């Protein structure tokens, strides 16, 4: 393939200097060439080569097209924390407007009103969905938001405790991220048991005590189960003077019990269930909390204010919490976040409207119920494993070793999770429900 770039100059194609300009600028600064401007001692200067050949746009596009074509074309029935739903084209087209995509953090709010308003609207939508007073304008993903919640708990709780309680059924990666955040605050992550896919309330009650600073539960759980005793979990946390942190996602929140009404102090989770296609685990960390934690919130907050002509205007606010002002006493080290993904989520939510969002979430319940029933009818399978209501996903018991079943199903063109020796997990949404027949057939063949 031709590597020729018509009309392109040598060096970086994105440095616009003509030779004449370069010469004039060098003369203005009194240098013979650009090398004169570098003050790097010879002993540490690099005069080797990276060995990276420059390629044309056309070549790179072809190369990456060919490389990514090596990904098998599977229909994914995968969830466990990374969810996608159909994202309407309008979201791509509007979010890709260069005024959004190529802008920076809004340090000069007078010329960044558009993005600030969009983030303010995103925060407001999460305030509605969680019922809590404050939502920040994003963390990296659900796992890091959970880590930030733990350090928040450590800062705001008066108890001398150092234990963060998490459910035994939790994504291992999430637990690991949490442990990394906890280590620096000398917090220990401990597990409480579950009973048939929900919090084992008695066991939790027994474990909760004054050494506990935070109780974490998920709704739906990592296995898609809807929690039936959330208010009781909240009460247990409250009695222990521990923060009740609830994990969820932006779609589920539109129908499940409102976190504020069950006593949640903080809601974390995945807001990228809206606005983001499957992105190999890239996410949008949702973080909302009660108003009393205002000065302890991690991450950026957009607030409304007035400009000098008394018009409504928006700005990043309460920045004295943040690293660039407060340094080692900041509430977090986060700087760059996922603002553009938050913009996309807000656009998607606006496009769905509350009726569309609720319909989508209801379908996530119906599809999961239907598919579990159909799999349960197959010989060699039991589903759902837990006698609970489910949203999007559920666990499946297999007579055959689960890994072997998953392999066989993959060979037939479908991806499912293996979560135990004889346990699979299946996630069904608007994107793959129309392939449910074929998945059921593939499972039947693999039984």
């Amino acid at each position, binding site marked *: 393939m031709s590597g020729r770039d018509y009309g392109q100059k*040598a*060096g*970086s194609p*994105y440095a616009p200097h003509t030779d004449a300009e370069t010469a004039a*600028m060098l003369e203005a*600064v009194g240098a013979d060439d650009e*090398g004169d*401007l*570098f003050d790097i001692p010879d002993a540490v200067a*690099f005069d080797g*080569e990276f060995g*990276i050949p*420059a390629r*044309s*746009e056309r070549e*790179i596009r072809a190369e*990456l097209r060919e490389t990514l074509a090596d990904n098998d074309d599977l229909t994914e029935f995968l969830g466990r924390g990374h969810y*996608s739903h159909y994202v309407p084209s309008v979201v791509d087209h*509007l979010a890709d*407007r*260069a*005024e959004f*995509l190529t*802008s*920076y953090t809004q340090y*000069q*709010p*007078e*010329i960044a009103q*558009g*993005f600030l308003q969009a983030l303010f609207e995103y*925060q407001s939508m999460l305030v509605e969905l969680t019922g809590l*007073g404050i*939502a920040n304008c994003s963390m*990296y*993903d659900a796992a*890091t938001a959970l880590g930030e919640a733990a350090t928040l708990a450590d800062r705001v709780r008066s108890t001398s405790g150092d234990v963060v309680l998490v459910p035994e059924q939790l994504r291992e*990666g999430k637990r690991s991220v949490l442990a990394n955040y906890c280590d620096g605050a000398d917090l220990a992550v401990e597990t409480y048991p579950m009973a048939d896919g929900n919090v084992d309330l008695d066991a939790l009650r027994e474990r909760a005590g004054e050494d506990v600073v935070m109780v974490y539960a998920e709704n739906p759980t990592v296995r898609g189960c809807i929690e039936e005793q959330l208010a009781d979990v909240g009460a247990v946390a409250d009695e222990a003077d521990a923060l009740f942190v609830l994990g969820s996602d932006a779609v589920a929140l*539109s129908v499940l019990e409102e976190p504020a009404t069950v006593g949640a102090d903080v809601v974390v989770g995945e807001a990228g269930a809206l606005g983001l296609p*499957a992105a190999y685990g890239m*996410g949008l960390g949702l973080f909302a909390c009660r108003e009393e934690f205002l000065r302890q919130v991690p991450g950026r907050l957009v*607030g*409304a*204010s007035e400009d000098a002509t*008394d018009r409504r205007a928006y*700005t990043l606010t309460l920045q004295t919490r943040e*690293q660039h*002002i407060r340094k*080692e006493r*900041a509430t977090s*080290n986060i700087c*760059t*976040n996922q603002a553009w993904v938050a913009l996309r989520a807000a*656009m998607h939510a*606006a496009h769905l*409207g*509350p*009726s569309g969002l609720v319909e989508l979430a209801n379908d996530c*319940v119906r599809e999961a119920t239907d598919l579990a029933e159909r799999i349960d009818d197959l010989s060699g399978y039991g589903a759902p494993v837990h006698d609970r209501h489910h949203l999007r996903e559920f666990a499946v018991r297999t007579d055959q070793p689960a890994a072997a079943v998953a392999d066989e199903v993959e060979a037939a063109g479908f*991806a499912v999770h293996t979560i135990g020796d004889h346990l699979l997990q299946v996630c069904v949404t608007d994107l793959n429900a129309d392939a449910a027949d074929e998945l059921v057939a593939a499972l039947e063949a693999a039984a």
Partner: protein
Amino acid sequence: MIYDQASYTREEEAQHEPLLSEKDETTVDVREESPLPEELTRDEVTLPELSEPEIARHYTRLSQMNWAIDAGAYPLGSCTMKYNPKFTEDVAANPDGAVHPDRSSRSVQGTLEVLYGLQEYLAEIGGMDAVTLQPPAGAAGEFTGIRVAKAYHEANGEGNRSEVIVPASAHGTNFATAALAGYDVVELPSDEDGRVDLDALEAAVSEDTAALMLTNPNTVGLFERDITEIAEIVHGAGGLLYYDGANLNALLGRGRPGDMGFDVMHYNVHKTFATPHGGGGPGAGPVGVVDELAEFLPTPRVRETESGSGYERFEPERTIGKVQGFEGNWLVLIKAYAYIARLGDEGLADAAAKAVLNANYLGERLDLEIPYGPYHHEFAATSGDRDAADVAKRMLDYGVHPPTTKWPEMVHNAMLTEPTEIENKSSLDDLATAFNRAFADDDETLENAPNRTTAARIDQTSAARNPRLSWQALDGE
């Protein structure tokens, strides 16, 4: 100027773009439609309900009230805002890459090959031996690097090292990262030339030192000429040397952190490799380390299979675990790969050369004093007794985005300026004119600026004293 109907036809108090919720809002009774039992659902949900044309107009209008690199220069020092090549959006949008992270390695060979390729490129560019792509932003990269350093010390029976040394002029994230990782921060003063004070460093290191975090060139654009001595002092005390990659754009092809004695570093892909910043993120903060630290990196990493016929994920032997829930910000990483491939050796070196030339040319054109030099890709000018934030607001009226202000603190009323390589001479001339005019304007003009922007000067005090962080909080106003 953008045609703004609102300014002409709306009542004076409503001359802002209405919020989505003010345009149209609906309440849905959740229980009515739900297949779930009543006790498991919320009562209702109230959100904006707009048609697609209304949404298109809403966000188009918002976009028109926003500065962007495609609109003009963004000379924010240490932020390195450069042009984002459009074709990288196309490669990221390839649906073949839209896969779930829990797919088996054998079914995502294409994705793993891209990630492996990027690991290799970054290792080469930084002079490092091993790279993780998992950290989702620069600050997350710092946290990863310091966690790795901590795991290394603990593995060597030196887990009692409790201090991280950070130069006073360092990015705020360095201090916050060290604290988040559980370290005490020891602040290191600069010498009178603006670089690390070797005597102060000698005095600061001890058996408690876990690491020194350093940016090079530093935050006033100076290369730390004594980097070899700095490395000797830190290593001599048993500490590790951490490289903050914020200013790597200045070094491309002319210096590698690994060759300077750094043990661990992060890369800021939007700063150095032109991925779009998206109004605050997403970014990506890959971390590179020397061999001795590779076994502590987050899991999983990607390697070639033993047979060399493909790629696989693997868990480093003594991994710190995970720093992001999955495997990082894929949509950002693939753009960084494409950018590096587009530039290659020669283009990367040229980017650094032109970034340094641009900063020096712009600095030469300014009427403001620049106390420290020779600087590279950025410089800290001082507005002297003029308030730097006011000068910056006035620059908005001259049609440019101002530099970073009042930081670093070692320069009084600092205006930290970094034009990057993407500006041409006439763009830099315009920038210099805006700087010089704003600097020459009288105090009253500065204090009343800006007045040619979407919003006039915004009241920060009111925003913080009376926090209104949602449209719910605005109700009744």
